[in-house]
């Protein structure tokens, strides 16, 4: 199954220009996303040659009636800000 790859980086949210395999390992997904940002291949995210997605999280959402399958690469969110 193919999936849309969405990435959040430095406050911007964008899509990888190609779909990727839904079942790729997390490390591979992170590598694709990182290289996508570094090379400017991520629509909506400004190119950043120093992008590093170490410690980012990979979420997977299966296809629904309203959305295709999505892999979301995002920062960790431990806080509610007390």
């Amino acid at each position: 199954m193919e999936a849309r790859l969405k990435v959040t980086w430095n406050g911007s949210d964008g899509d990888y220009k190609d779909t990727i395999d839904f079942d790729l390992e997390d490390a591979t997904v992170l590598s694709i996303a990182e290289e996508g940002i570094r090379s400017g291949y991520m629509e909506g995210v400004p190119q950043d040659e120093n992008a590093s997605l170490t410690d980012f999280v990979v979420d997977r959402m299966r296809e629904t009636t309203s959305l295709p399958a999505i892999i979301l690469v995002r920062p960790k969110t431990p806080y509610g800000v007390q």
Partner: protein
Amino acid sequence: MSHIIVVGAGALGSHVVLAARNVGPITVIDFDRIEMKNVQAQFHGKMNVGQNKAVSLARIMQQVFGVKVEARSAQLREDNAEALLTGDNFIVDCTDNLAARTLIREFTLAKNIPCIHACLAGDTEYARVVWSKGFTPDREDTGQATCEDSGHLPFYVMVSSVVVSIIRAYLDQGTVQNCSVTPKSLFWF
């Protein structure tokens, strides 16, 4: 629904209470006290420094808006979760630690209580608001988000608005929505 229960009255939770004041009855839970550094980015006033966040917030909501908010000056734990959360309620998790988030998630799933978790990244340039069923708490190893800096206040307000939109969608239409939030974009899923 009996009450919207907001757990955590910090930068996010205090603004959720403010934004949800016309949605339904609200209960806010927090054991912490207001510090001077909190007033830059939280809906707490300088005059209330030293007071319990939940109690102070309830008083402000009554004084400013005439809205009655129930306050619980307590730290949510396994032994008091039943008393604090059970009922025909909608839970909003705005806590700041893995233990509390895990407890809220597991308790609300077990009791079939509707619950969303509002979570911010350490750099406060990303947030997600997610229903318990699809929620996995992240570990606390990326640096503490700051609540002293008023520069992040617009983002906290933005995330609070998303929280209230999700509550309304559920109460009005029975819709379950999740949202991935950056200062520039919302992604609903």
